[in-house]
């Protein structure tokens, strides 16, 4: 009761000072830094006729790059969702030597320049690299294949799921689990029917963020992807390619499509998110 009350008072206009100036400044920054620059994309793309636009964004090679980019991003985000939950769970629930270090390291992909990450990963997973040497004879080729794209995307997206799930688990009410145990649920039932459903919105948020980041990623991927048209060429690279052919309009057209698609996906995931939290609504 206390909590819901607090919430209801956090809502409402109230009389705290400073709304107008801070809102004004926020909108101004948003306009100058985000909205105006992004709008140029649409203006530039609008210089194309519809057919040209379709030609630019629906060429087979471009379509293939969407498939590669969004497909790998999806896979990577799923991987991150899976391992991210395990990592978050382990870091929160268990105590083992080195836990703090691992915990701190989770943020590394946020902090490491993506190009460095790409170069390093390519070095490790190339056929003469530390792991490539081991994997190649087993028939697993990572670097310069779509698997490499997935790998780089997993790397850069890793912190998102962990860092969104972790606080939820930390604040998770143990009593809920205990209640389920007293009602006769076994560990597996408790996890699948009580813990995971409650963690799900956070996982979804992390998944969404990891996905959005992966879709746009460029720096780390070009070094490890192999960049083969139709196979391992990502959309951001295509945008760059078009740019270097002086095809500004084509590049922005693809950029607009990318922007819209990831926006739509974000939107869908946000709706899903809302649905997954429906029980929290008053």
């Amino acid at each position, binding site marked *: 009761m206390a909590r819901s009350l607090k919430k209801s008072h956090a809502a409402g206009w109230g009389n705290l000072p400073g709304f107008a100036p801070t809102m004004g400044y926020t909108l101004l920054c948003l306009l100058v830094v985000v909205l105006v620059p992004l709008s140029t994309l649409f203006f530039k793309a609008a210089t194309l006729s519809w057919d040209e636009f379709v030609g630019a964004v629906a060429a087979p090679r471009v379509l*293939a790059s969407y498939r590669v980019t969004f497909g790998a991003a999806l896979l990577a985000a799923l991987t991150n969702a899976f391992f991210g939950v395990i990592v978050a769970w382990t870091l929160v629930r268990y105590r083992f030597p080195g836990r703090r270090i691992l915990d701190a390291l989770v943020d590394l992909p946020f902090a490491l320049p993506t190009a460095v990450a790409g170069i390093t990963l390519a*070095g490790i997973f190339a056929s003469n690299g530390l792991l490539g040497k081991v994997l190649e004879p087993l028939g697993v080729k990572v670097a310069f294949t779509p698997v490499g794209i997935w790998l780089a995307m997993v790397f850069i997206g890793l912190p998102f799921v962990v860092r969104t799930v972790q606080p939820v688990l930390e604040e998770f009410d143990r009593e809920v689990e205990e209640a389920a145990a007293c009602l006769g649920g076994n560990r597996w039932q408790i996890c699948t029917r009580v813990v995971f459903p409650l963690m799900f919105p956070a996982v979804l948020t992390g998944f969404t963020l990891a996905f959005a980041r992966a879709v746009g990623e460029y720096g780390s991927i070009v070094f490890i992807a192999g*960049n083969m*048209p*139709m196979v391992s060429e990502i959309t951001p690279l295509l945008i760059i390619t078009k740019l*270097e052919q002086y095809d500004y309009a*084509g590049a922005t057209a693809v950029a607009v499509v990318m922007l819209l698609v990831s926006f739509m996906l974000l939107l869908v995931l946000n709706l899903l998110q809302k649905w997954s939290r429906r029980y929290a609504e008053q």
Partner: protein
Amino acid sequence: ATELLNVSYDPTRELYQDFNKSFARHWKQKSGQDVTVKQSHGGSGKQARAVIDGLDADVVTLALAYDVDEIHNKAKLIPKDWQKRLPKNSSPYSSTIVFLVRKGNPKQIRDWNDLVRPGISVITPNPKTSGGARWNYLAAWAYALKQKGGNEASAREFVGKLFRNVPVLDSGARGATTTFVQRGQGDVLIAWENEAFLAVNELGKDRFEIVVPSLSILAEPPVALVDKVVDRKGTRVVAQEYLKYLYSQEGQEIAAQNYYRPSDRKVAAKYAKLFPKLRLVTVDQTFGGWTRAQKTHFADGGTFDQIYRPSR
């Protein structure tokens, strides 16, 4: 002191590092002024675009004439006849395309037709983004054309086959070299002659060797003054001298030392031993000039894209 900006493509880093020092000395002697030349390197197309978008290059020294043409077309920073303003079509040095293979040439690669053998893995950058790669592509095409019974269709099939042997397409010549040398990908790297020399000398004579194909293309990287920029900055004189100096004895020697084929007869003779002799075709003769070559082969939907069109 005056400052020049030379916007160039990837493999010329070392060349211009040496050349700039020499030029600074030369200019000091000649005019008593200090000059520093800043360098910018990247894929040739990317560099041209930067100039088009406002990168204040006093001179451009790019991989293909096409890229300089675009600077004229898109931004009018350079007059249309820029190529006529300097000797040798504005190309103070030339190069060609050769192969780099692993020591001992384990896959027995001798000529272009070895590259299309099944199981051979070829490393070359992406022609859509790399100037060097376009030379590679055109050299292969020319080779196929010049074979007995060669025609457009057979050339197209040949190049298509070749690119199906390519496992990695880097965006620039340097990236491709790294992939071949450092990552151990592929059996053969198609590269600028100077790149190949550099790789062998820098990264190990014991690890790589150069294979010279029977036929290749004469690559003439052009240089140009960016008129609008030098006029705005008031650097026309020194920039012109900079380009001129490329054709001088010293300039030509530096080019040769960096494995670019000098255009000056005397210097060429001096370094003749360095550069293997082979049959060279030119873009103008074989492909009707860069603009046409660009349009048929590398533009969106051109032959290169068709090579990668899904057969299904």
